[in-house]
Every structure is written in C-alpha cells, then in structure tokens.
C-alpha cells in the first residue's frame, strides 16, 4: 500500500464531491464542484441535443454565457471546457442568425477587394473590443478584423487558426460584423489565392500519373503473405 499511496494524486473532491449551487437558465441546482458546464446540464437531468458536439473544445457547439458569484460581468465559455464553481450562473447560446456570404472561392478575381462586397460591414468596426473579450479561444478578434480590412490576409489566417466557429464574437458586435465568418473567408482566400502552390506535391502527382511506381506495385502485389511480411520488415 505504501508504494501505491506514494503515487496517488490528491483530489478529494472527486471521491466525495463537494456540492456547489449553480443557476442554469435562472433555475437553481446543486451539482458536484469541478464538473464541466455540460456535465452539470446532464447531472441536473437535462437532455442536450443542440449545444453539444465534439465535447473536446474543437467544434464550438456549446457556446455558453455565464456569470460568477458577485460579479456582474457576463462572460463566455465553451461548456465542455469549463468547470462549474459555486454561485455560477449560466445559459447556453442559441445559434445566432448571422449572415454568411456565399462565394465560389476558386473564381474570386480580387479577393482583397471582394471582402468589401461580401462583408460590407467589415470596415465599420468601431474598435470596441467586445468581440475579443467574447472569444473563448483568446483570439484578438478586433485586431483580426482590422487586419482583414487592411488586406493582411496572412496575418488573419494565422490568428484565426484557433477559431472553433462558436460565433460568440457575433452577437456582441455593435457594427453587426460576424468576425468569425469574415476570418473564415479571409483564411480561405489566403490559402487558395495568396499561398504558393507546393512544387513537390505537383511532382508527386505527375509521378503517380506517369506510372513511376507501377513496377514496384506489380512486384509487391504479387507477393504472398510471407514475402510481404519480409518485405515490410526491410522498410526503415
């Protein structure tokens, strides 16, 4: 036992969970401290259909508004990535009716100019920073919108690689911009129009089309299992 106890991580709240009081959409419940917001919903008997997706912080389905004890500020989080605490009050965000522009990415003639046709509200950013404060992924969203408008598409695409499209930047925007959708357009345009086509990839595609590996394929596909096992062992 001594050996075993030496390697035990002390986390007593899990064995005998301390209960905390939380408020879900205005109703009070007792739940174990430290469980995630989404698990608190399940714990209180609520079925979750909308508002759950990957459960791993990547899909943005569980955008949630919350407040902590004695703090009037309403904050945002992903419900699958946030632990409940005593006195917390939360409600999930319904899908927000933001307008997504539609476009044929490959047929764009002037992607930087097209931004203003597709998202004419983008240059109207009033610098209030509410979007940045709302972002659970800690992206400097306001900076991203400015970079987009000033044509720094590369900068935007790098900044928004973390974006899970939860859309929490959108309802807070006083200029009615959907920054995540603007960034998605900009990132795609950057990838499709302003990034060099990789030469090695073209070479490989041509090699395959021209049958460069055919002889090797014929050789391998004729092998019996034993020969194939031996051949695989030679690959280092």
């Amino acid at each position, binding site marked *: 036992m001594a*050996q075993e*106890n030496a*390697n*035990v*991580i*002390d*986390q007593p709240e*899990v064995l005998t969970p301390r209960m905390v009081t939380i408020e879900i959409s205005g109703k009070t419940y007792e739940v174990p401290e430290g*469980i995630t917001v989404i*698990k608190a919903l*399940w714990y*209180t*008997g*609520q079925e*979750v*259909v*909308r508002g*759950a*997706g*990957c*459960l*791993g912080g*990547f*899909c943005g*389905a569980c955008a949630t508004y919350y407040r902590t004890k004695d703090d009037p500020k309403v904050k945002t989080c992903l419900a699958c990535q946030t632990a409940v605490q005593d006195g917390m009050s939360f409600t999930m965000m319904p899908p927000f009716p933001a307008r997504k522009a*539609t*476009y044929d*990415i*490959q047929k764009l003639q002037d992607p930087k100019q097209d931004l203003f046709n597709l998202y004419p509200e983008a240059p109207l950013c009033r610098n209030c920073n509410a979007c940045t404060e709302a972002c659970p*992924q*800690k992206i400097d969203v306001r900076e991203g919108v400015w970079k987009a408008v000033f044509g720094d598409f590369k900068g935007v695409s790098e900044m928004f*690689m*973390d974006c*899970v*499209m939860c859309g929490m930047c959108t309802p807070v925007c006083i200029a009615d911009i959907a920054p995540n959708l603007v960034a*998605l357009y900009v*990132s*795609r*345009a950057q*990838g*499709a129009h302003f*990034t*060099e*086509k*990789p*030469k*090695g*990839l073209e*070479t490989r*595609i041509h090699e*395959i089309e021209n049958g460069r*590996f055919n002889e*090797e*394929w014929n050789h391998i*596909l004729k092998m019996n*299992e034993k020969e194939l*096992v031996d051949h*695989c*062992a030679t*690959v280092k």
Partner: protein
Amino acid sequence: MDIHALQQIVHKTRDARRKQTLPKFSPADRDQLIKKYHPDSRESAYRPIRFGPNAGEKTVVELATLLEGDSLIGEDVDLTPHYTTDVLVIGGGGAGCAAALHAHGAGAKVILATKLRLGDSNSVMAQGGMQISVAPEDSPVTHFLDTLKGGHMKNDHQLLKVMVEEGPAIAKWLIGLGVLFDRQADGNLHVKKGGGSSKPRLLTCSDYTGLEIMRVLKDEVINQKIQLLEFCAAVELLSDEGGKCSGAIFKDLDNHRYVVVAAKTVILATGGIGRLHIQGFPTSNHYGATGDGLCLSYRMGAALAHVDTFQYHPSGAVYPEQLIGALVTEGIRSEGGHLVNAKGERFVNELDTRDVVSSSIIRECEEGRGIRTMSGRVGVWLDTPLLDAEHGPGTVEKHFPAMMLQFERFGIDISKDPVLIYPTLHYQNGGVKIDTNSETNVGNLFVAGEASGGLHGRNRLMGNSLLDLMVFGKRSGLIAASRAASMPQGRLTVKHLERFRANAKKHGSLSGVISPMILPAYTRKAG
C-alpha cells in the same frame, strides 16, 4: 501527495532519459505484449454475433447488442417521401462533406442529413495530421507498406493502394479550397513523422488539422448550397424490391417527427462508436459517435469487417477530471515527448504503433508502475516539458496551441508540467465492408470514412483517417452520383426489416434494445 510532488520524478529524470535510445520491440515481443495487455485481447469483452451477415463472428458485447437491436420503425410506417434526391449523404463529418461536395460537383442533386450540426464529427478534432506521401524520399508504396505493417498485414490491399495513390490529389484539392497546411521555407508542404511510419508524411495545420479542413469543407458545402437536414438522425434505411438501398427514414430531433427521404443512392458516413464506451473506456470521440451506420447497414444485410478490433489512443487525459478521455495528440510523442512511469523510467519506444504503445501503458499500470489519482484512475506521465528542453523554449506553445489552451483552462501549463495519460477509446478499426468504389454488398449503399472497414486492417496508423475520409468520401460521391444519373428511383419499402426480424426470431430473439442509439444516455435520471 499532490500532482506537483509526483511530477518531480519526471523533472528529475529528464536529463538522464534524454541520453537514452529505446529500441522498438521485436515482432515476437510486440505480439506477446498486445496479446497480454491490449483491450482487444480481453476475451470476456466479446461475444459472437448471433445472426445476420457476420453471424458467428465475435465483436464487443456493446456492439453485438446494438447490431441485434430492433428498429424504431414499424412495418406499417408511412413511406410517402418528404424529400427526393439523387444522392443522400448521411453524416456531416469529413467523409460526408467530401462525398456531398464531389457528388454535387458531378451534377447530382444531393441532400446531406446529419444527426447534429453540419461538421459535428471526430474529423473536426483530428489534431495529428493527414498522411500523404509528398516528400521526395517517400512514395505511395512506402506509405502502403508502413500502413500494412501497422495494420498487422490485414488491410485490404486494393483499398489501401487506392488511398495512398489518391492522397496527393486530395492534398491539391484541399489546398485549392483554401486549406492552410503548414509549409517549409521553400513553399513545399511541411511533413512530420507519425508513429509506425518510416518517413515523415504527416501534413499538418498546426495542431488543428481536422478543424482547419472541416472549417473549409463546411463552408464549401454551404457555399455550394447543398441541401442540409441538420438534427435529423437516421433511424432506418429503405430498400427496393430487390433489396437495394433506396433512401432512409430520419427522426427530426427538434420535433420528433419522421422524415422520409427517397434517394437513388445512399452514402453512409456516420463515423465510429467511441461513445458506446466499450469495456468502460473513456473516449476521445464526439457526442454522436454511437455507431449508427453499422446498425443501419447490418439490418440491410451489409457485411462488416474487422469489428473485433478497436483503437485505443495511447494518450487520453487522466487528469484533471474534466478532461478525462480527451486526446493528448500523438504529435507530442512524434516531436520526442517521453512516456514515463511512476519510477521515472521510459518503458516503450514512443513512436511504436498505437496498439503497442497503448498495451505497454496498460502493462505499466497493471504491474503497479502507474500513477493513481484519488478518483481511482491510473495513468503514466507524458513528459511535455521535454519538448521545450529539447527544441527550445516556446516549442510546446508554438506547435501545440490547442493542447496548451485545453489544459490552461484548468490551470495546467503543459510546457512546464508533464500530463497524466492513459489509453482512450479512439477509433473503430473495422466497419462496413466496402469495395474500391466505396460500395457495400447491398446495392446502391455506399459507406465512407470511419464507418467503413477493411482499409486499416487491425490497427490504424496516425494520420491515415483524415486521408481515408477524403479519398473514399470523394470516390463514393463521384460513383454514387454517376450511378444515380443512369437509374430510376427505387421503390420505398422496409422489406429488409421483415427479413431481419424473422431471422432474429429463428436464432432466439432480438437483443431488446432499439438501435441506432442516436445519442449516449448521459442524462442523470434520479436524485
């Protein structure tokens, strides 16, 4: 003892471990290790399937029960279609989106139906990358051989050849759509080495590869104005008089009504089964990964392949409690992160195949060299700070921003503190048997992505799933579209259900559950 005290052994032994090189196991040792410790080897977890195309073959109890489950649909159901289409795609992950886009591009009318939102899938969570042989020293043949070795030589050769050969064209397609893969200074694609691969072959988008690809594909599906049925869970397929697939019945999860879709061809891209929590394992899978496609196609008479083998990703989080089962990307190990037991020792070559690494972690824990948390979970350390020590400060933050953020939310800085991990149920190696057209033995029923089986053999190599999705998503889409163009709509019946129920009766009874499960039952019922 708190976590920081226990972590000291990892910090103390780091320098000594850095000088070590651990050989890979010999094939014999490897087989023995897997036989003794891999969850697939626990016979008590398995039972034979009693009837249907795979009668007599073993699979895990959880899946067997669902395969022998009954449909929600009665034989007197009203089959007047609400929608009619050429190609019906079921599932909105990577394979579903790729299939829908290619079928639409080929001129077919496409409906994409999905249980949750468009894009909700395991694809979006893929962090490690996508294997495509683009490096000059690499080749599709080497990719083939590595995969075959990883899959214990059981992979379907034809499927595998198709996948590795079509990989580069897929990369080109994705780049054309605006996917931002990591690049080298010369503009070529940057490639990383994954476990079980002899050459660097992983294309990555930071550690957000799946998210980046899915953001783009989802956007493209919307831009192409492909008709979507979101929050519609497939509950039964439809069959014409000849037994060929002719559509599907969905349950609209918003209003609980049935939605009938008549389709000339159907592509199932419903993903895997992590949320069945087989053998009680936590899972890295998304909320909807309940194996729906397997049950639906099995009832139609489609044969399954390799459904007795599952992938347990070696590194699922064990601490903190909120992240149980969440993935700690294999990228950490491919960049040199060590696995360390409670005594501060390494015990496996971290870049061996996933089944070998998982088995050895389970061995360490079962033999008392694991670290147990107060919640009763056991794990081993993954030395993440080693990456900063090895490649310079800031490496972890730069290469693994997703991981950093995920742990930071719970006050853990993985660039300074090692993380506790244990295998997590990650992937269904097998699935519905398909041919190189992505078609099953049921006519006009195609399956793509994780729901399909054969390609990965008995163990999947890291990064091969994203490629599988795209290649067979594309093939199924193109072939289903061209097939649909040259044939009339089949009649809508549920005749196969009569057959299935009669067959069950002959072998005793149905299992007593309704399948598909649709969503896991996490809602607490009492108290």
